[in-house]
Each structure stands twice: as C-alpha cells, then as structure tokens.
C-alpha cells in the first residue's frame, strides 16, 4: 500500500483559474505559495535574484559572479540576446514576461507568438477555448492586457483540478506527447505525476512549423529520447529549412555572424533529471522542491514555494532521505559538482564563440579555396550548431549540473569536441590560411558583448561598438509602446 494524496471538495467551479480564489479554501498552502515572492536570497550557483545571466561584471542584482559572459554573442540575432535573466518564483511569471526585452515592446507586434503564454499563466484553457489552435500563432502583444499579473500567474490550476485538487495536466504540449506515447493520465503512478507537473514547463520545447500542424504550437522534441543526442536527431527532421546541407531540418534562427541555422535549448530540467542518480531512482521534483512542511505545527502540507532547496540552511528537503548526512556535507557535495560543471560550461561557451568566428572568417576568406570548400563550410556549420546545442542543454538547465552530474559533464565534453571540430573544418576550408588569425585568447579575438537590447539596437553608435554587430541591421528608432501591461504610447505610434 502506498499513501494517497487527500482529495477535496473545494466548492469552486471547475473553470476557476484565479489564484486568489484558492486562498480561503487552502490558507496554509496559499501562505507558502505567496513565499514565491521572495526574490533576494542567493545560493552559491542558484537562488532567486533575477540577475542578467551574461553579466559577470556587475554585482547583484544586475549581475553575478557565476555568469557566462558570452551569452549575447552566442544568441546574436535571436531575442535571447536582448535579455535573459535568472528565473525567480512562479508568482512573477506574468510580470516578468511582460517586461522582458525578448518580446518587442517598441512595436505593435511583439514578434513572438502567443505560445509563450503556455508556461506563464492559468489562462491557457480559456485562450484555447476562445481561439482554438489558432491561438499559438497570434502575436504576443495582442494579449498583454488579457490577464492579471497575480491572479493569473502560474498557480493552482496549472497543476490541480479546481473542484477536487487532483493533480491534472493543463499543458498542451505535454498532453500531446503523452497521448502520442499511448499513456493515460489516470494510470500514471502518483510518484511520476509529482514530477510531470513540472515537466509541463521545465522542459525543452520549440515552436512547431506549420508543415507539421498548427503553426507555433509548443512541442517537446522527445520522440527519439530525452538526451541531447536524441533531441539533436529529432531536430534533423521537423523543420522547413531550405539551406543547403540542412534541408528539412528545424532551426530557431540563423546566427548572423556565422550564418549557421541554430537551435536554442530551454530549461531541460525534466530531461536532465530523468536519468540522473535521483530521477532514475524515482526521486521526484516535488520531493526536493516541495518537501512537506508543518505550518500549523501538526499537519504536513506540500510546500508550495518552488525554489532552491539549498536556501534552507538545514537542507531538510534532502535530509528526508539522507538522514545520516549533515547539511554542510550535502551542500558541499552539490557545490563541488556545480563548480566542476560551471567551469566546463565556461570553456564550452568559449569554444562555441570561436566556432562562429572561425566560420565568419572562412566565409569572408578571399584567397584560394579547396575544391571541397562548400562541403567544409556546411560541416563547420553543422558542428557549430551541434556544439552550441549541447552547451545550451547544460547552460539552460537550471541546476548547474546537480540534477545529473555525469550527463552534464559528458554533454559539455561533447560540446567542446563538436565546437572544436567546427573550428577545424572552417580552417580547413581556407586551406589553413586563417589558422594563424584564429589563434590566441578568445577574449581578444571576440570580446564578450556586455550590453545589447532592442533599444540599443536603434543606436547607430552602439552598433559600432562590437565587430559582430556589423552583421545586424540598426533598427529604426521607435518609442516604447508597452511598459509591462500598460500601453505608454498611443496605438499607431510605431511606424
């Protein structure tokens, strides 16, 4: 016999999606839920301050010592190069997406599809009900004012049935995956559900191309498996590329410097965890991130503050299982692993930058070229794409390797090898002519881009501040239209 989660009768309507409505029914749970507002405590590698993840120069809250300086270089030409911050609590999800510079707030069109809403709000069932599968491809800005930043941010109904509080899927892409996989929610063991709730969002995804179904629908690239190699294989199909050597492949954007069709990995926590020491042993996300608390001193409830378990000095979450270990010991094990992973991450990142630079120089090389030049350039771009995706699988994952130390380190070693092969193929493509120019410290060769944003993109002076910016067009001046959910410029202000 296994313990069973209690079921409730909330007396709330089935369609209820406002978080506030659950406070009266579950005051204790709600109290822990509100603790997601905490956004100042840091741990060595994690924590809740939303600093800029590329800024290793400025102190908190703007930057942090363990930041990766080349993010803006690696994502150039893609919205992620404008702004990417460390995650904080679920209660900020709507607020943060409304302010993020990845979505264009200087234009009527945000430039990103409404797909983004899928993982930020309880509104999804309503959106889908109203717009059906056309919803995804609609412009993000169209719905800015459709939701309430607090009442509709990630909350109860993202995981629970409003009437009974049973665990329930709301996420369209996870539902679709399970269905295709022939799995029925009702027969999935409770222990797996305790992780799948998070697997609704903390996963790699992409926007579906219209050739394969509703345009811009979020899809999890999982049919080949959850490891980076599997996803890379998956992305060899499922696309509409007509680029020579990459026909039919999926890509998120073309890197303007190296003209490489790139992939962006996003928060593959579920995938990373799945075959690590804990995931394989059946230790669920909720075991560590929602461990039981007794708020009234008596009854256990699942802690609904989803944050780093290391914020707790006692590491109680861990010591439910590791009863024989001290908090200091356990913290030491985590940080030791993270340090190894982060150091390798920095190295992988640099080789990836070198790959783009090598391809750029090879593409611009005017001297004699070998007969195989075209093939070598395709090869260089393919390794560059692969090396960066493998780096990103670990970089975008939020545990800095702890969820799966061996997979993280193995993936980074591979990333380094692939990116190095890219550099070598590019050099080969010029008959070794550029070998010399490419040699040397990457920081000299390609300095990190420390500042970049949609606004700076409109500034011709800024656009002269880095060699790589010449592959971007200066954007036409435009006023800010959206400050979060508030329209600050009249309709039609943008050209």
């Amino acid at each position: 016999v296994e313990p069973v989660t209690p079921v409730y009768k909330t007396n709330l309507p089935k369609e209820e999606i406002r978080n506030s409505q659950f406070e009266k029914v579950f005051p204790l749970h709600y109290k822990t839920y509100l603790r997601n507002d905490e956004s100042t405590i840091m741990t060595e590698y994690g924590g809740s301050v939303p600093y800029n993840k590329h800024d290793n120069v400025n102190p908190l809250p703007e930057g942090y010592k363990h930041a990766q300086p080349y993010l803006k270089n690696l994502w150039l030409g893609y919205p992620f190069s404008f702004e990417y911050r460390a995650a904080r609590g679920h209660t900020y999800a709507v607020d943060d997406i409304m302010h993020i510079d990845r979505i264009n707030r200087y234009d009527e069109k945000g430039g990103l599809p409404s797909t983004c809403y899928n993982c930020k709000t309880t509104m999804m069932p309503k959106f889908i009900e109203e717009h059906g599968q056309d919803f995804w491809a609609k412009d993000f800005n169209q719905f800015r004012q459709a939701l309430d930043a607090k009442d509709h941010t990630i909350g109860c109904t993202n995981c629970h049935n409003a009437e009974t509080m049973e665990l329930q899927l709301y996420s369209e892409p996870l539902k679709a995956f399970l269905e295709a996989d022939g799995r029925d929610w009702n027969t999935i063991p409770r222990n797996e559900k305790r992780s799948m709730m998070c697997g609704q969002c903390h996963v790699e995804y992409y926007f579906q191309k219209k050739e394969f179904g509703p345009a811009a629908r979020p899809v999890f690239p999982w049919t080949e498996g959850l490891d980076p190699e599997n996803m890379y294989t998956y992305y060899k199909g499922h696309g509409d590329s007509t680029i020579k050597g990459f026909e039919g492949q999926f890509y998120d954007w073309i890197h303007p410097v190296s003209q490489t069709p790139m992939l962006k990995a996003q928060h593959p926590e579920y995938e990373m965890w799945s075959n690590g020491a804990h995931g394989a042993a059946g230790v669920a996300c909720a075991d560590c991130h929602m461990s039981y608390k007794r708020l009234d001193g008596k009854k256990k409830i699942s802690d609904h503050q989803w944050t780093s378990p290391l914020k707790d000095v006692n590491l109680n979450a861990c010591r439910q299982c590791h009863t024989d270990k001290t908090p200091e010991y356990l913290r030491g094990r985590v940080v030791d692993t993270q340090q190894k992973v982060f150091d390798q991450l920095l190295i992988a990142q640099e080789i990836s930058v070198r790959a783009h630079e090598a391809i750029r120089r090879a593409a611009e090389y005017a001297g004699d070229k070998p007969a195989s030049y075209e093939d070598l350039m395709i090869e260089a771009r393919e390794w560059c794409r692969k090396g960066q995706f493998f780096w990103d699988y670990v970089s975008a994952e939020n545990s800095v390797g702890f969820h799966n130390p061996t997979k993280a380190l193995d993936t980074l070693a591979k990333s380094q090898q692939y990116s190095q092969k890219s550099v070598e193929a590019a050099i080969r493509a010029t008959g070794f002519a550029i070998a010399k120019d490419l040699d040397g410290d990457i920081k000299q060769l390609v300095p990190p881009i420390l500042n970049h944003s949609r606004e700076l993109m409109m500034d011709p002076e800024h656009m002269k501040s880095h060699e790589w910016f010449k592959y971007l067009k200066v954007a036409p001046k435009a006023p800010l239209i959206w400050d979060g959910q508030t329209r600050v410029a009249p309709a039609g202000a943008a050209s």
Partner: protein
Amino acid sequence: MSLLKEGQSGRRWQAVILAGLAGVALTVGAGLAMVTTDTAGFCGGCHAMSEAVLTHSQSVHSKLSCNDCHAPHNIVAKIPFKAAAGTRDIYVNTLGTVPDLIHPVGNTLEVVQANCVRCHTSTVMTVNMDNKESCMSCHRHVPHTPRKPISTRKAADV
C-alpha cells in the same frame, strides 16, 4: 542548526515536567499498558508516527513491535526510558510543534543498535562491529527505508 537543537531540547525538558504525570500514567500504568504501549498500533495512533508505522509495516521486521527496537530491553532501563520518551512524544504532539523532519535524537540510535545486536548476535559476532557507526551504515533500509521515493511513504495529512 545548533540553535535550533537547543530550542527543541529546551521544550523537551519542559515537556517532562508538564506532561510528566500523563506520561507516567500512560507508560508505567500496568503490565498490560507496558505491552500495549510497545506496539505499532499504539505508536501509530499518533499522526506524527504514521510514516514510521507505514514503512515499518513494509519491512522484514513488521512482526516486531516498535519498542523491540526503540526501548532498552532491560526492564530496569526500559521503564524510565519509556516514560521520558513517551512523555516527550505526547507533549510535542499535543502542545508543541511537530518538526518538519523527525530525526532520531538523544540515545535513540544507541538503544536501537543494542537491540539489533541482541537479536542478531550470532550473525555479527564473527566480524568487527565497530567498523561503521552503526548497523544502519550498511543496512540503510532497516526498517524505515528512507531512500524510497517519498510518495511511497508519505502524503500530506488530511
């Protein structure tokens, strides 16, 4: 960490005084009570003990009573031990704050260890038993299977 411990043992000391009478009544009342208060049924009557009872019931030792392990076997040592432990458990449960994580405290591990050896003497007497902190260093599953996924041993309280 150490601060917290102090706070807890402070409460426990209070507990012995405050709930002393109740405890003594419960634990040394009669011979019958002596046996009853050893069993999983009695211990499990308390909510805070439900996880331990559940995992115990799934273990090879399920036929044992809790106090086959958790109280000294020697009756002279057992009575005061039970009085103190029982009093504390009851006090904390009714008047105090049950901690998020219940850890063995005081001489619990020593008491349990002595009981392991008591039953299993012939199995262990041929090897060096001071080679680890306790039997549980190797027999980590005995009897509360702490490394099993939490959903197989815990749920929220209704």
